[in-house]
């Protein structure tokens, strides 16, 4: 708990006054390799002691940093164009819950490892395990959140992270008589779910939204075996042709809005 007060954020540069508490800092998740994850807690604007805790994870893999969820989606602040100041997000999710952002795994954002090989051997399993260790140790620093209603939220490749962490928590809780992680559920958006079905659904979307020609659509369906580990040369060529010669300069993440020049 002493570390909790050290982690308290008094005010961020360029931040407007806010009616909620914020904390941020590191939790070591592996002493041997020296892996530590960076978190940022923005407590609820009213009655934080009564509101649930929600852990938010972005995707990538390698992009679960505070650039996305915290700074342009659900966090309380948006960053202005010059990077000099912050302004309030009218639809911040911390009016309904205490939002915990985590930069994960080590190597993303401010989260680091003292073993550089960790940057080249990360994967789903260790990411989920480190995240579980993070939560258990974080709860020691913030004991008021033990047994609190707890949810996990995320998007994109967090379609892996979120259910995999939820599974580890469920298994951990089964093995402990008085589990402190009171996980109630999770919510994921535009979530990577199943390589085979996602791929078919994606190519179908490209065709039904007139991003690719019939010819390319047929070529992808003909040459791509979506259940194979590796894509064939013909498949790669068909998909590359679509992206490089048929999509045009769109923002693939939002196909009807202007792309960033």
């Amino acid at each position, binding site marked *: 708990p002493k570390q909790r007060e*050290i982690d308290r954020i008094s005010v961020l540069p360029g931040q407007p006054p806010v009616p909620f508490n914020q904390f*941020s*800092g*590191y939790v070591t998740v592996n002493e041997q390799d020296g892996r530590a994850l960076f978190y*940022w807690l923005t407590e609820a604007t009213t009655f934080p002691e009564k509101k649930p805790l929600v852990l938010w994870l972005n995707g*990538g893999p*390698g*992009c679960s*940093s*505070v*650039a*996305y969820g915290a700074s*342009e*989606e*659900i966090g309380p602040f948006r*960053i202005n*164009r010059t*990077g000099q100041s*912050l302004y309030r997000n009218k*639809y911040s*999710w911390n009016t309904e819950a205490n939002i915990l952002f985590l930069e994960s795994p080590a190597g*993303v*954002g*401010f989260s680091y490892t*003292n073993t550089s090989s960790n*940057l080249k*051997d*990360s994967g789903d399993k260790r990411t989920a395990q480190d995240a579980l260790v993070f939560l258990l140790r974080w709860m020691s620093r913030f004991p008021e959140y033990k047994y609190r209603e707890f*949810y996990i939220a995320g*998007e*994109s490749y967090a379609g*892996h992270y979120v*259910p*995999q962490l939820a599974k580890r928590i*469920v298994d951990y809780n089964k093995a402990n008589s008085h589990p402190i992680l009171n*996980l109630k*559920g*999770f*919510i*994921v*958006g*535009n*979530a*990577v*779910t*199943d390589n085979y*079905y*996602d791929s078919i*659904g*994606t190519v*179908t*979307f*490209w065709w039904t939204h007139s991003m690719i020609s019939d010819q390319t659509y047929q070529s992808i369906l003909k040459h791509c075996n979506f259940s194979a580990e590796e894509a064939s040369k013909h498949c790669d060529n068909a998909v590359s042709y679509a992206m490089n010669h048929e999509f045009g300069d*769109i*923002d693939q*993440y*939002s*196909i009807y*809005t202007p792309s960033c*020049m």
Partner: protein
Amino acid sequence: CTENYAEKYYNRPDVQKALHANTTGIPYKWTACSDVLLKYWTDSENSILPTYKNLIEAGLRIWVFSGDTDSVVPVTATRFSLSHLNLKIKTRWYPWYSGRQVGGWTEVYDGLTFATVRGAGHEVPLFQPKRAFILFRSFLAGKELPKS
């Protein structure tokens, strides 16, 4: 271009100090994504559907949503994947509302709620913040999305 704003802000020494971040002198700039991790990612499950089945049995509240203008992990991909869970429909497909506009569409299954968010890209709360907020509030409350 909002990602660029973050790259500016979080690399400022005064911001890192205020956040108690980068206390060990990380030997590279803060970036929104780590290209190294992405490039060398090792184990990645082919399918999360078995985990969904497991967690539905564990009784967790599970919501899956899709911004319907994203072409990277599009709504059709998610629907195609979820359809292979073969879940029983509890509340048939209906439009949900935000203000007097259709915020998207939703269907409630035994163990899982699926919802689209109309006009939102990959980062749903970035493109449709109000609709995303209503979605989140309904999820937390464990209530179906508003029918009007």
